[in-house]
Every structure is written in structure tokens, then in C-alpha cells.
């Protein structure tokens, strides 16, 4: 069941930049959807339109069946945003920041929720600190805490771990997995492909305002994933023996290893290959299997 439906959404800024070109997308309830793309691909514009920060030039978006413009109150009450930049009022306390965030959504104070969120993000002992007394990492936690205060059905995370150290990044991943378990749908944009790879259920790849692909992460990895068998040779090999002259086999530049390219659509007989090597007196020193990561897939798609 989809919680967010985007139909032919487009955005042209006043300077003529076409940030989005007829993007259509459906997000399922309870999933983590990662939107990947290089800088300026249109990720933030897409999120900002859905959250009400930017007016679209065309198309429509429905959150929980509510139109983001005509039924903005119902639509926005289901959504929360963690922006890319640290945007916080520096002069109020952490607790006030959270309470105000809930108030803007028309919800009365709920101290037990504030406490739960603060402790979930290790901020409880900082609740009376002013925001400008916090470290960068703490401020990022406050941004997430604030976004959870309206108990959203859909949480948008725009580059949530940009500029965050490894430890905090892993903490955040754990936290995001936890709120997903509680039933929140999560849409995140990220530069860190590792982030998408480890957390997302589905992945969308956007470039120059166009959605290039939407796919289940495992299917995407399977469909696009390439494997390489790297066979290191004991002695250099000047030329490939005729039995090994095949499309999927090549000799490395330093002539010290054989590279066998294969993937999900194409398999080969390893035993056969080993026998051929043996017949040609080629001695193996090492064998490594390399599988392409999401990063490789992403780069391949963008370069297409």
C-alpha cells in the first residue's frame, strides 16, 4: 500500500533551471526508500516540494491520499523533515526546540514523548542546554529529534549523515532502523551509497531531474551487479592461449593476472577454466572474487 504518490512532478526555477522533469514515484507504507543522485540531481527539490517548502511547476503529490497543495493541512500533518543543513534556533533550549516543533503541528505537549525521543538520541542530559552550546553531532541529533516530535507517518531525511563522524553515522543508522520498526516510512537522500546499501528496501536513482531507475535494492544489486574472478598468476603471461580467448576473459595490463567477467545473466564453468589453465601449464598463485557494490552500479548508471 502506498503512502506517497508522486505524479509527473516538475520544477523549473526562476533562473530557468529545470530541477525536476516529470518525476513519478510511489512509496510504500513502512519501507525505507533511498533516493540517490549526484549534487544538483533534484533530490532536495523533490523533498522540498513534498514537504511544502517549494512550489511545484507541475504535477501532483499525495501523502496518505491527501493532496499536498489542496489538502495541505492533512498532508503535512503526516510528514516530517530532517533538512540537510543544521537549521536550528541557536538561542532556545533543546527541550524548547522539541516542544515548539510539536506545537507547530497543532499538537499539545506530550512530556513522555519528548523524554522518550531525547533519551533515544542520547540527548536527555542536554535538554536544558541552549542549542548553540551543542557540538555539531549533537545538533544533528536535535534535528532528528525535532522531526519525530509530531509522530510522523513519513519521515524525510535529506542527507542525514552528511559531515557526521563514522560512530555517529552508525548510531543514526541504528536509530533509523528502530523507527522503521515502529512503522514509520522513511525516505532518505544520501551521498553515502553504503548508507543506502545497508538500510534501504528500495532505491531510486535520480540524475538531472529525471528518475533513472526505481528498484528493490536486492533486485538492483542482482540485476546490475557484476562479478569478477581475479586469477593471479605465478608467472607473467604474454598472450592468452587460444582456448582462453573469450569475450569474458582478459589479461591484466601487467600480464600477471587473468580477469574473468561474469554476472547474474552469465555464468561459466569454473572447473572447465581450471582444467584449461592446467593443460596450458599456467600456475595460479591466488584467486579473488569481486562483486560490484552499489557504488559501482550507481556510477555505471550515471555515466550511461
Amino acid at each position, binding site marked *: 500500500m502506498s503512502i506517497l504518490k508522486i505524479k509527473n512532478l516538475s520544477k523549473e526555477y526562476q533562473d530557468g533551471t529545470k530541477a525536476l522533469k516529470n518525476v513519478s514515484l510511489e512509496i510504500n507504507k513502512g519501507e525505507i526508500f533511498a533516493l540517490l543522485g549526484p549534487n544538483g540531481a533534484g533530490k532536495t527539490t523533490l523533498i522540498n516540494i513534498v514537504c511544502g517548502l517549494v512550489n511545484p511547476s507541475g504535477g501532483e503529490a499525495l501523502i496518505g491520499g491527501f493532496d499536498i497543495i489542496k489538502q495541505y493541512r492533512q498532508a503535512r500533518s503526516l510528514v516530517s523533515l530532517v533538512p540537510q543543513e543544521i537549521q536550528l*534556533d541557536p538561542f532556545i533550549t533543546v527541550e524548547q526546540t522539541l516542544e515548539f516543533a510539536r506545537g507547530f503541528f497543532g499538537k499539545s505537549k506530550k512530556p513522555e514523548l519528548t523524554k522518550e525521543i531525547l533519551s533515544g538520541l542520547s540527548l536527555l542530559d542536554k535538554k536544558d542546554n541552549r542549542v548553540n552550546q551543542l557540538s555539531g553531532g549533537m545538533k544533528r541529533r536535535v534535528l532528528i529529534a525535532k522531526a519525530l516530535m509530531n509522530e510522523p507517518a513519513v519521515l524525510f531525511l535529506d542527507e542525514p549523515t552528511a559531515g557526521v563522524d563514522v560512530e555517529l553515522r552508525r548510531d543514526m543508522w541504528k536509530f533509523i532502523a528502530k523507527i522503521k520498526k515502529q512503522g514509520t516510512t522513511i525516505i532518505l537522500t544520501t551521498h553515502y551509497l553504503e548508507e543506502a546499501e545497508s538500510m534501504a528496501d528500495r532505491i531510486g536513482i535520480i540524475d538531472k531531474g529525471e528518475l533513472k531507475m526505481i528498484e528493490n535494492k536486492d533486485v538492483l544489486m542482482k540485476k546490475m551487479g557484476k562479478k569478477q574472478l581475479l586469477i593471479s598468476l605465478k608467472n607473467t603471461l604474454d598472450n592468452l592461449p587460444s582456448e582462453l580467448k573469450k569475450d569474458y576473459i582478459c589479461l591484466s595490463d601487467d600480464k600477471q593476472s587473468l580477469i574473468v567477467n561474469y554476472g547474474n545473466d552469465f555464468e561459466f564453468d569454473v572447473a572447465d577454466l581450471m582444467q584449461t589453465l592446467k593443460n596450458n601449464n599456467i600456475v595460479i598463485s591466488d584467486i579473488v572474487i569481486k562483486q560490484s557494490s552499489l557504488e559501482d552500479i550507481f556510477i555505471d548508471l550515471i555515466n550511461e
Partner: protein
Amino acid sequence: MNLIGFFTIYKKEMIRTFRVPLQTIFSPVITTALYFIVFGSAIGSRISISGGVSYAQFIVPGLIMMSLLSSSLSASSSGIYFPKFTGTIYELLSAPLSYLEITLGYTLAATSRAMIISVIIYIVSLFFTPVPIAHPLVAILFVFLTAFTFALFGFIIGLLSDTFEKLNIFPTFVITPLSFLGGVFYSVDMLPGIWHKISYINPIVYMINGLRWSFFESSTVSPLVSIGIISFFLLLCLLFLWRIFKTGYKIKT
């Protein structure tokens, strides 16, 4: 209507006011007290005003208005500019809040702040001279209408400004001169010929004279005309704001 949302904006703004009381409350009070000492007591004793009103009493409504204008304008302009500057405006735009609720949250907080300052200034003036108010309810009406109009005006300035410099252009180059020329320290009737006529283009003349009438039952402009002119400016600000929100100019690109 998202009443809790509106009240949250109002509360946040009032907390901001009381977080820096020296700057927001006491600074205008000290400035006004100095005006009393210099103009009311020192120079004022040599100036005579008709109708049995002393000069020190005469300037009280003008000083209240002058402070009211600048504090309501600066409270709402900085109130909305600050979230734009820090980027926290996203939390208002992404919340289920209407433009009306956002506008009222900021402008009514600015109006409240300006009215609190007005009351304090009135109390301070009582230390210098007795100032009875002939029509307190009319006085409250003038103070509220003026503060609210200038809060709306300040809100527009805050929305349209993209630098701190632009934020200060209107208060410095328009509001302060118009307040001084609006009859705070004199009656526009005292001005000769053409200057007397030109003064009536200045909307602040009507605001000051309206409040002055509520204090002393006499002023150079009828109170009804004053209410009409203030209401006209209030409507003008509302229309302009409606236009800004409709087009999303400088808020939603």
C-alpha cells in the same frame, strides 16, 4: 484552524522578547525617559500649548506612538527574518499552518510587545507629570490598531529582506524621520503654510493625533479620520501580504 500552532509561534516570539529585556523593553523606556527630561522638563517649561495641557503632557501620546511604531515594526520584521536567516523557516512552511496563522502569530506577538512597552512608557511618564487619559478605551484602540498595522508592515519588510542591511532601511530612513515629522514634539498646526499641508501626507500624523485626542479630547485631526487612515494602511498591508503569499515571492521559490 491550527490554534496550537498559532499560539506556539506567539509564545516563541514572546519568549524571544523577554529573553533580551534590556534590548527589547528597557532600551525604548530609557530613550523615552531621556526625551522627557530634555524636552518635557528642560525645554518644555518654556513652551505653551493651548487647552490647559502642559508641554510635558502634550508629548506623552507622541512618545508612546513613536516607540510603539518602531518596536512593533522591528519585533515582527526581525521575528520573521531570523528564521529565514537561520533556515528554521522550514519548520513553519512544512507544518500544517496556514499563512494567516503564521502572520497572526508573529504580528500579534509584535503587537503585544509594543503595547507592553507603551504601558511602561506611560507609567514612566507619570513620574514626570500627571497624564490623565480622557478616553482609555479609545486610547487602547489606537494603540492596538497602530501597533498591529506596523507589525504587519514589519512582517512584510522581514519577508522581503534578504540582508540585515535591508531590514534596517525602512526603520532608519522612513519610520524615524516620519515619526519626528509626525508631530511628536509639536502640533502640526504650528508649522507654516506648505509644511503644514505636506504634514497631512504623513500617516503617522493621524496615529499620533488619534492617541492625543483620546488623552486630551483635542487634536488637530478628527479621531474618526485618524481611525479611517490607520485602517486604510492596515488593509493595504494585508493586501500586500496576501499578494506575497499567493505568489510565494521570496518564501517559496
